């Protein structure tokens, strides 16, 4: 148990996460997410794909993996330039915040968000599995809270969805933390997250950055 873990996973941690919807805004506008049921399916798919990848990269970076290798492996798993940009923007904000709280092991200012999260988690004294859990949790809470704003869903019912995912989230973090080599890092793709992110980036007016 650790307060530091709660601090880093807290949506109020000043790293700009609230500006991103994790692909939900694009899915809502396309009509793919309309209600609690479709939101639940969205969160399931996002946790199993982007969530597992982010958790594995966060754990690997926390364990002291080479950040430039991890960063380019993350690039190779992110075909969408809009998602690469969003991930780097969030990574940059997290490194900036983390650097004021702890002593980071890298002088890098820009890394993909999961890699940055691993670096900051290590500096905060967290274990790789805790870094993985923070990453996995973030991939569901981001879009869940965006759903309340975008669809006007009941916040209690939305939080109930997140609560129901708790066990899956734990399982994803455990699996992610077991990844031992760069070649084993998962690359689970979610075609509609990529395609939706590109459509979203082309809009002139949007509520969220991604």
């Amino acid at each position, binding site marked *: 148990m650790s307060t530091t873990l709660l601090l880093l996973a807290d949506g109020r941690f000043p790293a700009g996460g609230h500006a991103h919807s994790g692909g939900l805004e694009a899915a809502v506008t396309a009509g*793919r997410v309309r209600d609690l049921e*479709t939101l639940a399916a969205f969160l399931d798919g996002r946790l199993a794909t982007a969530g597992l990848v982010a958790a594995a990269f966060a754990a690997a970076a926390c364990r002291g993996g080479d950040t430039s290798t991890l960063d*380019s*492996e993350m690039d190779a798993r992110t075909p969408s330039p*809009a998602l690469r940009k969003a991930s780097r923007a969030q990574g940059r904000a997290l490194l900036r915040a983390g650097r004021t709280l702890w002593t980071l092991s890298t002088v890098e200012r820009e890394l993909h968000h999961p890699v940055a999260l691993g670096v900051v988690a290590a500096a905060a004294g967290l274990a790789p599995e805790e870094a993985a859990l923070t990453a996995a949790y973030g991939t569901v809470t981001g879009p869940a809270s965006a759903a309340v704003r975008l669809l006007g869903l009941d916040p209690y019912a939305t939080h109930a969805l997140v609560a129901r995912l708790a066990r899956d989230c734990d399982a994803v973090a455990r699996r992610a933390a077991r990844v031992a080599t760069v070649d084993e890092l998962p*690359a689970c793709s979610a075609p509609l997250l990529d*395609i939706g992110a590109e459509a979203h980036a082309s809009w002139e007016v949007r509520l969220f950055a991604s």
Partner: protein
Amino acid sequence: MKATARITAVAEAGRTRLVTLRSEPPLLVRRTGPRHAAGEVEVHLVGGAAGPLGGDRLRIEVTVGPGARLCVRTVAASLALPGPRWPERAGPRSPADTQSTLDIHATVAAGGSLRWLPEPLIAARGCDHVSRSLVDLESDASLTWREEVVCGRHGEDPGDASLHSTVRLGGRTLARQDLAVGPRACGWAGPAVLGGGRATGTLLVVDPLWTEKPPEAAVLGPGAARMPLAGGPAALAAAVGGDLREVRAALDRAFT
């Protein structure tokens, strides 16, 4: 069934020659098509049996030498099916007994070109199929690599199919994608992954001529986009649709 097919193309005096064409049922390789103006040689994989079936171990090795140009196609879709019923007297079965696997390893030397344009994989009900592709490109090699999956035959829920692909350029990872559909894959039919679409596909193009300027990102419709990659002169088109026709149409126009 366990089978390995091998195709090796080399350039000789400005023309591409097939120096190895090894078939093993059910993987039969046939040279097809006229010699293209650009000197590309075309081969087709002709399915010698239905499948892959659970338990099959298939392997395809493709080597394209410096300056050689090869195009590989298949005559029909592959239909991943469950294996024969497991006899009880054979004892407990392991995934190796029931899973079908297809391993593809391709290498393309500098100045070489490979176009890999197979028909889709159809994941029939009850199948358990794993396909792994590893493509190694020397810098200055060209590649067109298409992968498509259809989730089940008409009106059928799919079995489990996962496709893992890695493309390396000059020893560095350029693209890695793992796509999983079927009952064991979490959330695959939901709005983050396929959104109820029954077909999906990607077309990866690596072209050394794009070193200065890769194609720009473009939205190709409600379920398709073209995306320049970070690690080299390459772009990936991805599409999701109600059927293969929709997906193929989007991929076909992605780079024109």
